[in-house]
């Protein structure tokens, strides 16, 4: 499964909620305000760092650039919309709205 998170981890629980339902093969994709979770050195960085112990985490490039995020957590993979399409092709998507 591809878990899609589009909310800031600072103000919304979507990412934390999703983490209770993750298989080891599952992938997490951060889009829209969800990409703030990929920023390094924040009080919420631990969430993605923990996720990365078992799962692959992607973040959408266009959203990262729009938000001016430069220091990302290592091992978070950056993808563009075409990569997003590939991820959907490979996994059933679930949006954690």
């Amino acid at each position, binding site marked *: 499964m591809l878990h*899609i998170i*589009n909310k800031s981890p600072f103000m919304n629980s979507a990412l934390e909620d999703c983490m209770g339902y993750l298989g080891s093969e599952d992938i997490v994709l951060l*889009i*829209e*305000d969800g990409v703030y979770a990929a920023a390094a050195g924040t009080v919420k960085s631990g969430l993605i760092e923990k996720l990365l112990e078992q799962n692959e985490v992607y973040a959408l490039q*266009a*959203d990262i650039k729009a938000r001016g995020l430069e220091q990302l957590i290592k091992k978070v993979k950056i993808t*563009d*919309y*075409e990569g*997003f*399409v*590939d991820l*959907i*092709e490979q996994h*059933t*998507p679930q*949006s954690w*709205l």
Partner: protein
Amino acid sequence: MKLSVVVLEGPYTHEASDSAYNLIQAALKKGHEINGVFFYHDGVYNVTKFMEPPQDDRHISRRWMELGEKGIDIVVCIAAGLRRGIVDKIQTSNVRISGLGQLAKMILESDRVIVFGD
């Protein structure tokens, strides 16, 4: 892959509409088939024809109209539209109004369905 896209939020207000559009463009570029776009909830606001955004901004209903022109099936949920007063006479061309059954059909016909919302 046959892909259907559900959009639950309105234009400009929420990035959901942009994410959906950009994803569809990328899917088309990669040769996938867009089985349909279904506007539900505030998504129905995406196709109002009187939009006049600032000149340096994207024109969201025109974008959807152009996708419709290319033959992509763009469906506006009638129940969500009626409640909000978004009826066909104020909608852009190349989109159609239909019921939630259309969403069910898209699910039956697609390999993947993705939801964008808030």
